């Protein structure tokens, strides 16, 4: 968003500055109408894009296991708070990513385990199921 949508970034910085208010406005989709007019990706679209990337890794992993039975595969994906947080909110916790706040600490992340078509991750000590192969 920062690099691909300079007009939208300008609109947000003029109204909200460059600090927390900027990100709060973006995450709550407070300027949704302008964002859609400019064709800019919002938190929901980011969550779906990350979900697609993870589903693709799952598809690749299935092919890998077909060719290499009995092996374990670890896929290490690197991202940022602004992609991980909306994904977890929408696709793990089933929440609207625009009206909840889920911080991710520096260097933080999640581990998703998949086996035989079942996926899960642990958040705050709680094991949560994920939907894959959809």
């Amino acid at each position, binding site marked *: 968003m920062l690099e691909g949508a300079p007009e939208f970034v300008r609109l947000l910085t003029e109204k909200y500055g460059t600090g927390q208010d900027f990100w709060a406005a973006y995450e709550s989709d407070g300027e949704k109408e302008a964002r859609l007019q400019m064709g800019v990706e919002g938190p929901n679209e980011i969550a779906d894009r990350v979900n697609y990337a993870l*589903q693709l890794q799952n598809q*690749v992993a299935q092919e890998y296991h077909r*060719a290499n039975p009995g092996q374990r595969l670890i896929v290490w994906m690197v991202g940022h708070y602004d992609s991980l947080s909306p994904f977890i909110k929408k696709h793990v916790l089933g929440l609207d990513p625009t009206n909840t706040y889920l911080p991710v600490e520096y260097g933080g992340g999640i581990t998703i385990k998949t086996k035989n078509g079942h996926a899960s991750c642990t958040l705050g000590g709680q094991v949560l199921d994920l939907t894959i192969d959809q």
Partner: protein
Amino acid sequence: MKNPYLNYFAYGTNRDLEMMAAIIGREKIDGAPARLLGFELVVQKTNDISNEIIKTAPIPASPRQIVEKAFDKNFELYIIRPRINGVTFGTIWQIKEKEYQLVREWELLDFGMQQNIHAIAVGSKNTLINVVTHGTLNRRAFINRTIEGNDYDNYLVMKDKILKVATRVREEYLARLSK
């Protein structure tokens, strides 16, 4: 020494050797069947193609204007778009970077008809291969229909006509470069 060849994943008409020969001007090209992961093969009609003139366009024309001029309003093209668990069948051709520029020219990437895509394909020996290809990253891109499986027609328009146009586009591109 660096391998001078790219793994170009070609789908639709470009999976056919004659078409590739017309696009890049080389008749002997190493290639093998493959499946691209995470993308579905779809068909666009001219009304589905962007009519926007973008900043990177070498001349002020939209992709739709260009294809309608080169063919007609009944033109159809194959394109890929992201889909969870999608699979597109095609061919991985071994081509050089300069030859891929000819593919980009043919697929009107600078005009915004398609985007450059780095993806993963499964080769004929079930190996995972990093490939370069083109298509749209817009999962909601306008389409006319989806294509499933490997048993689809390579050519959506008259073969002789599209081969002639591809040859002309390549010659014009190379002539522009030599100026």
